[in-house]
């Protein structure tokens, strides 16, 4: 009898994570899922307790008018497949589960999982196109929570949720790893920037910077670039040794308890270090998890974080606006470029004007996608989809839609201040062999094109 890998219990130990990681691709995990028993009484009770008038009304007044169909990139990318209409997807999963008061079987739950993670990224665009204001993305997020609680969650997200619960980060990055990475990045850049520092746990700083564990583990140069930009702008800043992880795979997984743990860790760092504001890295879902949804998970009635929490784009725009960061006109982007709006902080947090303000400083030939801003399409890999092997084909098909949108602008460079969008664009370039298309975060662009003030010591390397 092999070890239990697939169960409703969240992973809370290193051993649990290792056991799951050993099961390459989740083969055994998904095999076990086929026999995972559905606790129908508990599911019925969960629905009774948490499915209130908003969701029930949405499902019951849906006029089946199909106005949402064209709003969904999955529908479009799959040649208008009627099974990809948001209304159909939610009615045949959550709707059916409610109509049956939770009396559904394992096969139903696995199908619901496939739809909730493989056919929806919770981008919330359909809600913008529904005359009745039915936000199917919100309902899919709710459905993910129910599925997670009952053990029906994709393998990678079970692991991701476990990572957060065990390491306080989406990857196995310990506090020591993190602080050492900061020291390493300072050393690495000291020849070029002799006064560069990454102050850890400094109290009463103007800015506390929080980031994405991927940057620590895979892209430490991104931390160096953030440090250089804080240094050059004369920002009094710090990073916390604990509570530095801004992301939340738990949100993608529907692990609400894990979400609360994450955001509380960050808010505890705020309590401890008392910064005037917090700035988060170029990540969309992290911003949503910590700033938009996070206050609620942390039990803050007003829905506001304890101090102002800025997305990186807000901080950059502020620096450009106030002249703390100056761009060398000769180094502005000359090639045609476009901007990928992250659903999580543009549609769902209104920062579209801010990113365009940045473009006005740095790009000579900026081209909008159509549609854009609050009406943008998801990159195709949001909501956790990028990371789920089981739905790789579905994701790759979905990427086509964004790729066509990008190509229609004629841009050669896509600026993507969001990790998930960045990954999706990297993958679409590879999958569809569009090798002339480049993509980038903001930080490397800014470091290359900023004017270094005279008082900052800098050696050309």
């Amino acid at each position: 009898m092999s070890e239990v890998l697939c169960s409703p219990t969240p992973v809370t130990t290193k051993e649990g994570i290792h056991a799951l990681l050993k099961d390459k691709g989740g083969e055994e995990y998904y095999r076990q899922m086929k026999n995972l028993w559905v606790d129908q009484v508990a599911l019925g009770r969960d629905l009774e307790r948490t499915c209130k008038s908003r969701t029930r009304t949405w499902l019951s007044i849906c006029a089946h008018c199909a106005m949402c169909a064209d709003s969904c990139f999955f529908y479009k990318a799959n040649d208008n497949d009627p099974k990809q209409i948001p209304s159909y997807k939610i009615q045949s999963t959550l709707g059916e589960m409610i109509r049956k008061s939770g009396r559904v079987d394992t096969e139903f739950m696995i199908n619901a999982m496939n739809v909730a993670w493989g056919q929806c990224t919770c981008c919330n665009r359909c809600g913008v196109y529904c005359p009745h204001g039915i936000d199917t993305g919100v309902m899919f997020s709710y459905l993910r929570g129910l599925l997670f609680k009952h053990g029906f969650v994709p393998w990678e997200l079970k692991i991701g949720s476990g990572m957060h619960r065990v390491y306080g980060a989406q990857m196995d990055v310990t506090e020591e790893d993190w602080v050492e990475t900061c020291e390493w990045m300072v050393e690495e850049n000291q020849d070029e920037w002799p006064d560069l520092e990454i102050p850890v746990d400094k109290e009463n700083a103007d800015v506390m910077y929080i980031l994405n564990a991927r940057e620590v583990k895979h892209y430490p140069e991104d931390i160096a670039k953030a440090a250089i930009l804080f240094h050059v702008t004369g920002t009094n800043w710090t990073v916390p040794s604990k509570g530095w992880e801004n992301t939340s795979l738990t949100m993608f997984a529907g692990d609400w308890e894990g979400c609360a743990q994450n955001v509380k860790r960050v808010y505890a760092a705020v309590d401890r270090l008392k910064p005037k504001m917090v700035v988060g890295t170029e990540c969309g879902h992290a911003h949503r998890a910590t700033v938009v949804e996070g206050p609620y998970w942390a039990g803050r009635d007003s829905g506001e974080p304890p101090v102002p929490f800025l997305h990186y784009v807000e901080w950059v725009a502020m620096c450009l606006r106030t002249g703390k960061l100056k761009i060398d006109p000769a180094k502005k982007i000359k090639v045609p470029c476009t901007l990928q709006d992250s659903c999580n902080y543009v549609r769902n947090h209104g920062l579209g004007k801010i990113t365009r303000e940045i473009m006005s400083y740095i790009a000579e030939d900026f081209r909008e996608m159509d549609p854009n801003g609050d009406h943008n399409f998801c990159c195709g890999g949001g909501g956790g989809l990028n990371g789920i092997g089981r739905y790789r084909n579905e994701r790759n098909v979905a990427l086509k839609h964004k790729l066509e949108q990008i190509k229609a602008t004629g841009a050669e460079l896509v600026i993507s201040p969001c990790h998930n969008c960045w990954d999706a664009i990297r993958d679409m370039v590879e999958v569809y062999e569009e090798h002339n298309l480049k993509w980038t975060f903001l930080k490397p662009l800014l470091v290359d094109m900023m004017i270094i003030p005279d008082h900052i010591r800098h050696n050309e390397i």
Partner: protein
Amino acid sequence: MMDFITGPLFALSLLIFVGGLGLRVILYIRGLDAKLERVAYNFHFSRSIPGALVSIGKWLIPGGTAGWRKQPVAAAAFFLLHVGAIFVPLFVLGHTVLLEDLTGISLPSLPGELADVLTIATLCGLVLLVARRLTSPALRQLNSCQDWLVLAVTILPFFTGLMASFDTASYDTWCILHVLSGELFLILAPFTKLSHIALYFMSRAQLGMDYAIKRGGATRGGAFPW
């Protein structure tokens, strides 16, 4: 017969309609949960109320939203249906007399010709919606029995009302059918998708508040651009 269906039965139907929809609105509001939905309904009124009003209002204007502009044919059918569906039942002469007799409330009435035109427009809208439901692969995936029931229940009072106005020879029969089908509509409304008559305003207000309170209301600069 006519006295009964335009008297006690009408009063009962109206009571079910108004009371039922009122109750659904109350239950909707009472069922909202700031913690579960993660929307601080009791905070930020200065932006949540305008957000709710814009969310309701823009969708009431033809071409007022990106959604309507993207699908002009569907939008035309919806507006053809809804303009008549709201104004004719409320303001057609026979109805205003009936309402005044029953409740003492006196409403202005529409000129007969205008009521006929609006009724025909409503029926055209309904026919377009039926055609759309039958022909569009997307809608065929979604169609349910209730969708057809709701369409039928809406078509009947308008069709019979129009016939009563034009087919004067059978006026009494059409009139009885019209009153009965109208009452069927009133009775079914709170229990079917027709409840959107009231819940549209709740649902739209909620999403408008959601965007205004949580999803960028403080940073976007103005209400969500629907």
